[in-house]
């Protein structure tokens, strides 16, 4: 019966599009994040939690 259900499903493009979107996004943000020019910016950003000294 499950196979009957499978045959009736006619939106195979839906998961394919989603998968392509994921792979494309993954490649793009990984490439962007690890660009050499962004290194210092992200190193600074990583220090934000430690930068909360009070003036009292």
């Amino acid at each position: 019966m499950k196979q009957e259900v499978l045959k009736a499903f006619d939106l195979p493009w839906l998961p394919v599009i989603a998968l392509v979107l994921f792979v494309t996004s993954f490649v793009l943000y990984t490439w962007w994040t690890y660009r050499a020019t962004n290194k210092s910016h992200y190193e600074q950003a990583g220090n934000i939690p430690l930068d909360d000294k009070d003036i009292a």
Partner: protein
Amino acid sequence: MSSENRSAVRTGTPEKFSYDDQIVKLFVIATLVWGVVALLLGVTIAFQLADFRLNFGLPWITFGRLRPLHTNAAIFAFCGNAIFAGIYYSHQRLLKARLFSDTLSKIHFWGWQLIIVSAALTLPFGITTGKEYAELEWPIDIAITVIWVVFAVNFFGTIIRRRERHIYVAIWFYIATILTVAVLHIVNSLEIPVSLTKSYSLYAGVQDALVQWWYGHNAVAFFLTTPFLGLMYYFVPKAVNRPVYSYRLSIIHFWSLTFIYIWAGPHHLLYTTLPEWAQTLGMIFSVMLWMPSWGGMINGLMTLRGVWSKVRTEPSVRFMATALTFYGMATFEGPLLSIKSVNSIAHFTDWIPGHVHSGTIGWNYMLIAGMLFYLVPKLWNSELYSKKLAHQQFWFATIGLVLYIISMWVAGITQSLMWRAMDDAGKLIYPNFIETVVKIVPMYWVRAIGGTMVLISFIMMVYNLWKTAKAGKKTDVVVYEAYPLHASHVEEGATSHRKLEGWPMIFAALSLIAILVGSAIEIIPSLMADQYVVKVSAIKPYSPLELLGRDVYIKEGCYLCHSQTVRPMPHEVVRYGKASNAAEFVYDHPFQWGSKRTGPDLARIGGKYPHMWHYKHFYEPREVTAGSIMPRYVWLFDQKIHYKDLPTKMRVMQQLGVPYTDEEVLKSVETAQLQAKGIADELAQSGVPAKVAEMDIVSLIAYIQRIGMDYTSMPDEEIATEGK
């Protein structure tokens, strides 16, 4: 210094401000109070499973009523309050801004506590939707939505007022949490009210199962994982006074986790009638999830590089490091369990509660403990009362958790292997389900002892933190100073992703798209179910009395121990009967497939035994099944059938597409009473008093006797013909 670099591009005079830590303190106190309640409930139901007599024959403390209260208390009360405490503390400091509105913060706090109290006042009385982890009825669902919006306004309002340009990665995780939980809660809670305390799910059968487990899985993902990862990215660096190991890895971690997690829901429904493609997709994305999860774990643990000695000396660091280790273990086990062949063994067994608790105790409790050991001394301006007590607490919690996990592994695998054991002739070696229950009861005792150790460890922490807070010294409000944001809110000359990181609303929209893409590929086809669920004419709606009986079944939480779906596996078909079919469940609002078989599956229970067997079974299960651990349901023999709402219930079902005629609705009470009399007459032949016709037990028997009957009575050839 990094802060000087960031300040260098800003203009204007530094502004002075303070943080709202009172609200953080309130949420910390609530975390501790509800933590004790949640764990106490957990220990109670663990002992009830080990010894049924601890149900005491009282409806409001029976397992089926208390188990939803335990899960709701653990997730939404204990973890929820901890999340809000941690987010409000870190959010202000990461953005260098006081929370948007003190009033909204108070509404958020008291509103959330009111919701928790409402849960505590409804679930023990059987007021439930019957959907796991979403049991709260519609008025409370609306209250949750309102309070969540209050939280979101307060949260995003603070971002708008911030003095820090870059939105730190912890806040990305918080944003994903707020948006996704809102979407999950609203979509899964769509229901039509019958009365103030009763509603029916908008979805039925396969659709309801898909939506429910899309919600259920992602409640774990976006309520118990992403906010805690955000807290980890803030509190671990703070506890060891070092930046996160790799900020760039945290970005990959965030986007991958957010995108992938949402796809994994169908692994809860492997081998069900859910479309095969959705099951396979859920499995593949669950395995893929291993990578970002471990990326986050490694990033957290590697933050401790060079300061590993603090794991030995500092309670906060010790608990956080252990939390990350358990996170790694749980996120290895999760993908493993989602592989279909492994899932076929583990699903419906005690292995799953074992896995769940390695996450909620190992990851959530341990991280909360680490966070509280860091926060409480700071908030109350004090030193931790006793490091020694904290370390003792650590060992109690860890040993208790290990006992819990191992006992459930042993119980789960033992039971599953017994379920599937067949001889060469194709017969079950353990045909009586009770044989597989009796075998694992000793493991239930071990689990209960382990859980008690975890509860004791938590009480030790409450005492330690109470003494810490009590010794605190009052101080003046601490004043901080930071430059205001540049009017552009972005750095001049910055490139696209960096600008994006400074545009919270656009960033939030992209996060929302990331979770919606995964959701859409699962939800859209399920909402178009007419295309693939073949209608079978023999499947008829429940009779009025059966509908009432089904509500009793839901009220008593029967779905927490009994499934209603037979997987297409030889041993299941031999044990129970025909494998389930999607068409069987089209009138089931809500679906009752369950997720655990403490007792046997009930999809083919209809007509298997006479009425009298069920009558005796609900009164004293041991009378018909020696060794049964099921509680007694004696009150069902005294409570009268509630006919008053029946016509309204059927009208609501009509609105949901169940083909009741107007005449059936008008005569519903009369029809139900007639069917009840028929059952009572049969019972009377065995000496049962005639007045039983008025009692809940009769409606429940009517429902039980109907389950699966329409489908099993159809010849296979007829099903195949209708399918074409």
